[in-house]
């Protein structure tokens, strides 16, 4: 029984934090995120026998969490889904003396130096949280949770091609917001989520 208790504690601690993180960024409300984490873990234990491939537990758990988030969203106010235009996410290019020069910030100190600063963490919080929901969910699965394209497609009911397209635009949008933050030395995105 001790082994079972240890397994329980490790499982709950590991997945509760992950589910909370995902649902907080999808729901935008702490209370909703904690409810989603609890409901998801209960559902996971209740339906564990339905998990056909134990090595795919992470996408299975996230699919349950995603459905719990969708149920919450019927009662809450959420950032709507919308499209991101590729043109709007491309950097401006200066043409001077026959040479092309990008108008972007100096990223050379990233990520080590600046990641240690809480202001930079908040800039990333805000950059991710302000993405349209349909792009935010993809970048959370692919880059934050590091699920594969196929796993993300399964969790979010999308085709792999849509996952790839949305991931690229989400990354470009986050890059653009961080670039604005770096160019303004933190002033543009200093507000907290």
């Amino acid at each position, binding site marked *: 029984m001790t082994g079972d208790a240890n397994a329980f504690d490790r499982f709950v601690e590991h997945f509760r934090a992950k589910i909370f993180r995902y649902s907080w960024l999808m729901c935008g409300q702490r209370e909703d995120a904690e409810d989603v984490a609890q409901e998801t873990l209960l559902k996971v234990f209740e339906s564990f026998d339905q998990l056909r491939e134990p090595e795919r537990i992470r996408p299975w758990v996230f699919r349950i969490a995603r459905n719990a988030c969708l149920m919450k969203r019927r009662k809450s106010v959420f950032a709507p889904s919308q499209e991101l235009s590729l043109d709007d996410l491309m950097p401006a290019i200066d043409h001077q003396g026959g040479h*092309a020069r990008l108008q972007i910030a100096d990223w050379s100190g990233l990520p080590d130096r600046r990641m240690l600063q809480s202001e930079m963490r908040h800039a990333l919080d805000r950059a991710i949280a302000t993405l349209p929901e349909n792009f935010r969910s993809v970048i959370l699965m692919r880059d934050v949770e*590091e699920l594969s394209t196929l796993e993300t497609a399964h969790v979010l009911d999308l085709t792999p091609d849509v996952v790839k397209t949305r991931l690229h635009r989400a990354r470009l949008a986050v890059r653009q917001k961080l670039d604005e933050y770096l160019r303004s030395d933190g002033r543009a995105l200093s507000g907290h989520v």
Partner: protein
Amino acid sequence: MELAERTAKCREVFSLLSEYLNLDLPPDACQEMEAHLAGCPPCIEFAESLRKTVELCRRYRPAELPAPLGNKAREQLVEAFQKMLSGRNARS
């Protein structure tokens, strides 16, 4: 290469960068992109900023953390976990 043509190539490179970083590009397209990157410092600079964005996302941990699990919530989870174990034991 004319500037306009070069800029159009840069835009094409920008649009494929995530697939390149994910190692999802077919070999031919990958070679073509690397040939362009080798002679285009602005594209290298942009690709590097996108690569670092991905790295930051992978290291990302939001400031918000869940509150410690309350007694009632823990009891509910323990009960569900024990039911799961009982069901497994009954079947085996």
